[in-house]
């Protein structure tokens, strides 16, 4: 379905207006992964780990600096014109904050019918029935049709955002922290809605979150990111029963409520991105960069596990 190879994105940040040199921040550092048909891939990492940049690159909302993204075998970074537009139909996104992802001046019917009309998926006369159907599928009724975003709750808004994404009948849905800004009680509803629509529409999904428990609930496979790099990749149960990378272990310990001590020491410029916080670091981590290695079922980027 989706094959990402060595994706890199570097942001240059000037420290002040008058600064001549700029600092380079690697938001994505040769990220590679595969997404199979109908699979849900969870992406875990703390803020600043490059999760959202990854989402935006896959959606082509931002151009990666190097690497390739193949969607159904086509290199999407080279698409132009009509093909580019048809890719937009195939890949959709749900954003984190439903308060900023819906245009405050548009009614629900406008929000949902816009993608439908843009791709001519329905005639104008029958748009109402189409929108009604989509609203039903996200658990809302017709009475929401003419509401403005500010007349709805966070959970309802997020349902509308999901409805908008589904309106183009995509085959890949990228969910960028879709429940992080919602109340805990509503999180579960939105998660099960996502799983339900995924099943019904036979979607593949990339689910991005900082919350390990949430990712565990929805994903079949998980990649763990830190500072733009993939540290570990594997099946959900494999990752949770046998975490290999010190960072993954720490995340799992945290999610169980038993925090592990974290070293925060000097270590600027070390090759391994996790060096500064790693309790198990060895000398080699300073000079060499661990690469992802292992079987298809479980890969890790750490020298402790015997990588090169």
């Amino acid at each position, binding site marked *: 379905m989706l094959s990402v190879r060595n994706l890199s994105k570097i942001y240059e940040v000037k420290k002040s207006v008058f600064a001549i040199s700029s600092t380079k921040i690697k938001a994505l550092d040769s990220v590679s992964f595969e997404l199979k048909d109908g699979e849900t891939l969870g992406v875990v990492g703390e803020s600043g780990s490059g999760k959202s940049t990854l989402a*935006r690159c896959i*959606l082509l*909302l931002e151009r990666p600096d190097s690497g390739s993204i193949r969607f159904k075998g086509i290199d999407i970074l080279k698409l132009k014109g009509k093909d580019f*537009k048809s890719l*937009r*139909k195939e*890949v*959709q*996104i749900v*954003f*984190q*904050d439903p308060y*900023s*992802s*819906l*245009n*405050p*001046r548009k009614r629900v019917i406008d929000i949902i019918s*816009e*993608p439908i009309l*843009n*791709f001519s998926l329905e005639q104008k006369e029958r748009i109402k029935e189409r929108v009604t159907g989509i609203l039903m599928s996200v658990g809302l009724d017709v009475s929401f049709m003419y509401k*403005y975003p*500010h007349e709805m709750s966070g959970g309802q808004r997020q349902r509308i*955002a999901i409805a*908008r994404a589904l*309106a*183009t009948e995509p085959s890949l849905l990228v969910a960028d922290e879709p429940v992080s800004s919602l109340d805990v009680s509503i999180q579960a509803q939105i998660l099960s809605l996502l799983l339900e629509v995924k099943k019904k529409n036979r979607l593949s999904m990339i689910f991005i979150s900082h919350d390990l428990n949430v990712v565990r609930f929805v994903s079949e496979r998980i990649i763990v990111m830190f500072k733009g790099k993939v540290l570990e990749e594997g099946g959900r149960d494999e990752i949770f029963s046998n975490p290999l990378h010190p960072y993954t272990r720490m995340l799992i310990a945290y999610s169980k409520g038993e925090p592990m001590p974290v070293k925060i020491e000097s270590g600027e410029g070390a090759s391994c991105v996790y060096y500064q916080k790693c309790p198990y670091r060895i000398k080699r981590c300073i000079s060499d960069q661990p690469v992802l290695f292992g079987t298809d079922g479980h890969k890790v980027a750490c020298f402790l596990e015997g990588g090169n």
Partner: protein
Amino acid sequence: MKMWNLLKDLWRTKLGKMGLIILLPMFGCAIFAPLVATHSPYEPDLKNILSPPSFDHIFGTDMLGRDVFSRVIYGSRVSLLVGFVSVGISVFIGVVLGAISGYYGGFVDNLVMRLVDLMMCFPTFFLILAVIAFLEPSIWNIMVVIGLTNWMGVARLVRAEILSLKTKDFVLAAKAIGLSEFKIIFSHILPNAMSPVYVVATFGIGGAILTESALSFLGIGVQPPTPSWGNILTQAKDSIEVAWWLSLFPGLAIFLTVIGYNLIGEGLRDIFDPKKRLSHLR
């Protein structure tokens, strides 16, 4: 419907209410001038030259015996027209250039912003004087020239609004559903950037009316016999010692109108201020 809600909100603000109380009757007078005016604004009455305010001529008459009240009423049409058309032109240019500049950034942004800087270097009023000196003075030329020299503030404002709006998720979502850039800018971003533009435009109307009056006063604006508050004042200055009414009433009309627009502008600012925002506006 939206316009009606806006008026209701404006009525709820103190300053906006005062502005509406001043301006709504003026709009009425301008639109229904032939019904409101007691005499023809052009008909000289040589038996009644420079007569002071009376029941027949409530604002008195000028040196040709024309009724000042009727002339002021008809003059309000010019002021209204100039205010709306010239501000319309400047808002249109400012919004389009500001939107393009803010959305595309980079080279285009630099180009537009340097053009703004360039235009701001000219003392506007003298630029207008110079241009009108070349063109024949007419109300249409004035409106166009005032419009063309007043769009810079709007452009800067819209650009700043768009810079902050274009990173919002709903704009990214609009991109993700494959909308054209034209649609993203004009249907998704701009409607959310317009509130401060309305405020600036309202103040701009007041400014444009003042400019028109000044130009007409200098004799290069609206040409007699068409009455405009500015050219009534020009004629009045020759007889100011004997006929105070000839200067007072058109002057008062200018004063009230401009203050009315400024009050409405302040009212709009209160409505759109996120800190004091009224219930249904978000």
